[in-house]
């Protein structure tokens, strides 16, 4: 007999309740989360099959709540960003969530394809080209939503051999730009230095994901090898492919190119960029409005020179103390 599942639909933001059959078998999903199959009885013959992510039980449950929040935040932001453009197939899709009760959950559509850990070495040149474009497109969408994935690896990115499409999954470690970086566990081959437990510092930003993403490009290009030194990027043809921009990827996160930079100035393929609004646009507008009010109250108070640095790192783009265009 079906249970009634109450949740918030990600595409509309409206509350819904749908009869659902829940599978008993649970598997790990992301960090401190478990997944089980649910079938929503939506009128189709077999029902709509989704994965229900829930926090683990036990002493990691508190951490599980936070990871589930990460998934829901990223999923909701992507839906808001996509709007009528349509949700990007390059990123795992949140179907709905229940975020307020003691037993919260998130409903995700199943992953497309197999993890690159298993199929990465079988991509031919043509597939690799689609893989590069797909991965960078996924990262552009995430950056547009103001989210860093923070867990890119051959285990969290899938490749659909049939369709030749890539999908970024497991949003459990993701965080919004501006959040304080929290340590990320796992193999150091896939965790950037600024997020490792022994050297974690600073705030999450648009450069965070590029470190692991470029390593993943090499992993696929070299048919399953780990990047040991930067010279291998040239040997694999990646340094040339990206017009020499990859050197900065392995420096401090503040100086890294973004995914959009790699597409525009590395690959020089503007046409594959998704036309999404910059996540910082609203923040910039809001802050400018505040600074106007502040200027009326405290006309002599200067704007700190680093005021915009957290959302507009490229200071050359604006006048000192002001947003792009010199406003404020």
């Amino acid at each position: 007999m079906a249970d009634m599942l109450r949740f918030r639909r990600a595409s509309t933001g409206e509350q819904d309740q749908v009869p659902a059959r829940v599978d008993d078998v649970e598997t790990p999903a992301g960090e401190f989360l478990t997944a089980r199959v649910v079938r929503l009885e939506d009128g189709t013959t077999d029902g709509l099959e989704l994965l229900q992510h829930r926090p683990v039980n036990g002493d990691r449950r508190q951490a599980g709540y936070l990871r589930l929040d990460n998934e829901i935040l990223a999923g909701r932001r992507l839906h808001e960003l996509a709007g009528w453009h349509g949700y990007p197939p390059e990123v795992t899709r949140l179907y709905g969530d229940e975020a307020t009760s003691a037993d919260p959950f998130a409903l995700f559509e199943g992953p497309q394809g197999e993890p690159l850990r298993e199929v990465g070495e079988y991509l031919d040149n043509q597939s690799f080209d689609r893989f590069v474009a797909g991965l960078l497109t996924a990262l552009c969408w995430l950056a547009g939503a103001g989210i860093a994935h923070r867990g890119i690896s051959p285990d969290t990115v899938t490749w659909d051999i049939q369709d030749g499409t890539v999908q970024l999954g497991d949003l459990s470690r993701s965080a919004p730009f501006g959040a304080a970086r929290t340590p990320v566990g796992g193999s150091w081959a896939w965790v950037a230095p600024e997020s490792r437990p022994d050297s974690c510092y600073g705030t999450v930003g648009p450069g965070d994901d590029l470190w692991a993403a470029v390593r993943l490009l090499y992993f696929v290009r070299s048919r399953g090898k780990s990047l040991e030194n930067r010279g291998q990027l040239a040997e694999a043809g990646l340094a040339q492919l990206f017009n020499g921009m990859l050197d900065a990827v392995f420096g401090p996160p503040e100086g890294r190119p973004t995914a959009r930079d790699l597409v525009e100035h590395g690959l020089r393929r503007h046409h594959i960029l998704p036309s999404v609004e910059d996540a910082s646009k609203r923040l910039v507008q809001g802050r400018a409005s505040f600074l106007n009010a502040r200027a009326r109250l405290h006309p002599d108070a200067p704007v700190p020179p680093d005021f915009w640095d957290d959302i507009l790192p490229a200071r050359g783009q604006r006048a000192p103390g002001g947003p792009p265009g010199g406003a404020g």
Partner: protein
Amino acid sequence: MNAVDLVITFRARAVGDGFAVAVTATSTRDNQRVATWQRRLDPWLHAGAAPGLGYLDFGTEAAFIRFEGGGKNLPWLSARVLVGPSSELTGGYALELSDEAGGGVSRVAAQAGQRRQLIEQRARSADAVARLTPVLAHALREERRVTMPPVGPQLAEAVMWGLLAVLRMTGDTTPVSFLTSATGASRSDDTAGMLVSFRADVPAPLPPDPGFAALAADLAGRFAADPAGLRATLASLGVPGAADARDRVSRLLTLPPRAKPGGADRGGTPTVTINPGDPLASTLPPTPTPTIPVARVAPAEPAVMCPMCLGDIRDWDSLDFWRWDPTVGDGEYVRIDIPSDLNPVQRARFTHGAYIRCPASSDVTKVAHYLPARYGQFGPPVLLGFVGLTQSGKTHLLASMIGELGRLSEFGIDVTELDRATHHDFLENSVKPLIAGNKVLPGTPDDATTTLTDAFIIRRGTGPGSERVVALFDVSGGDLARRDTTKEFLWIANGLFFVIDPDHIKASKVGDDTFSNVLDIMGSRPSAQRPSAAIVLNKADKVRFEEPVARWLRAGNGDLDPAEFLRESADVYAYLEQQQATALIKPYLACAKATLHVASPTGGAQEGEDKASRYPRGVTPQRVLRPLVAMLAMTGVLTGPQVEQIGV
């Protein structure tokens, strides 16, 4: 049982602006245990500096760290850690180990006690005794965190050895952890009992309570003169057998006079003279006899204003002392009769935890009201109030703020409760049920009179005005919404937290009643006395998936960078503006200085609407200290060119 059952050696290496710690050698193959200890010690390894020692009592187990090396970019290069049961690897044991203690577990055991004679001699030196006194005073007063300015490594070790020796002689078995050389506060707070840190960023010790300072000076002097004699005297008075700390202090105050007080005129400044005594005279270099003044601090001018009746209280020092006596009727304040022939230590005992009665209470038209005796002793107190609609979460915000006060040390701020009884009541009735019990707290009753919820002595830096009393008031939302009930404290409040529940933002005329009534009073005050405001989007977990709330809720505790406060203020201002909640922005426009914040006192929602319900996800406060830090900066409790920019 061995005192040491695990040895780990760490190495530091520079990473970016900081440094990372890696294990270089261990005495075990149990990698999981080593990893556990590395995680546990990491914040302490990042706080320590060379040359220095750390002893950390975690309850059943303890760790002893020796920091060595170090240079321009690293506070230390190598750190050797001994781990063992805290019953065996005690602080005293660790300090007595040889400087050269190397090798494995068995080698360490063979070195136990090698330095005892040397370190005891150092601990009884005049330099050590002078520094021991404030630490011991804080220990006797059961302070959990004591910070001291940096001293040489040997002197710091001697002070700690002396402290442990005296405490154990009195029968005090409180665990004591220490860092003899620290670069700043540790991010961790997981040690048991007391923690003493000699920190490079602390210019002077927090002055202890004068009475406890006098008692500590007396004990330290006796220890320096004749440790065995002190032990015998304490035993004869039954001090080691005291039932609890309070009983122990009571018995210590019965110590027979050892030296004649220096101030014969009790109307003048009494002093306690420390006499090192003859036995040490032959072994220690002659040093000047330190004289520690124990004067009562004069009241600040101008007069302190009573926060309850707005009356001026002059001659604070001349007022009678009162104490709360629960055995009289349903409990009432009774005057303390202080015999005129008491020495300063005995007088301190009588007045410890005392209150004064506001002189306006003598007016028959006014209800008698009382304030902690120390309330007026640190200049004009800073009064902070919480303003918001009923159910906006003011009480929960206040409780979680006070529960997290210890983390103010991350900002270089020391906090001491002003009145132990008041603080204890608030901890027991609000903080513990919320933080440890995950319970929903009852709101402030609408008919409650305005009372001091809690108050603290806040200190950052040194010099005049570095210590201020900060008093916190909670008032029911219902009271504030009624125009006929104007809370007296609003007329003299230095700062107000305007607390907003996200659910109220979209309600019609939101804030019109509560905020507008309060702002009316603000407008009636002389402009020079306009208070500061911290507008807090409280219960922000309700909107935790919305921008910019998500970003700020996850931004950590941050630091004192004024640009960071301005960014958060700008983003929250814009958020409220987008929601067309212009009434909630008014305090920003009306107050002299203002900041805006997001905060979540609980981290999640309660289960259902039942007042007796709990927070099913547990209580994990987020960003609750930021509004308080901003307020301390805006009201002048914190000073300096950087913090003065906060709120403008």
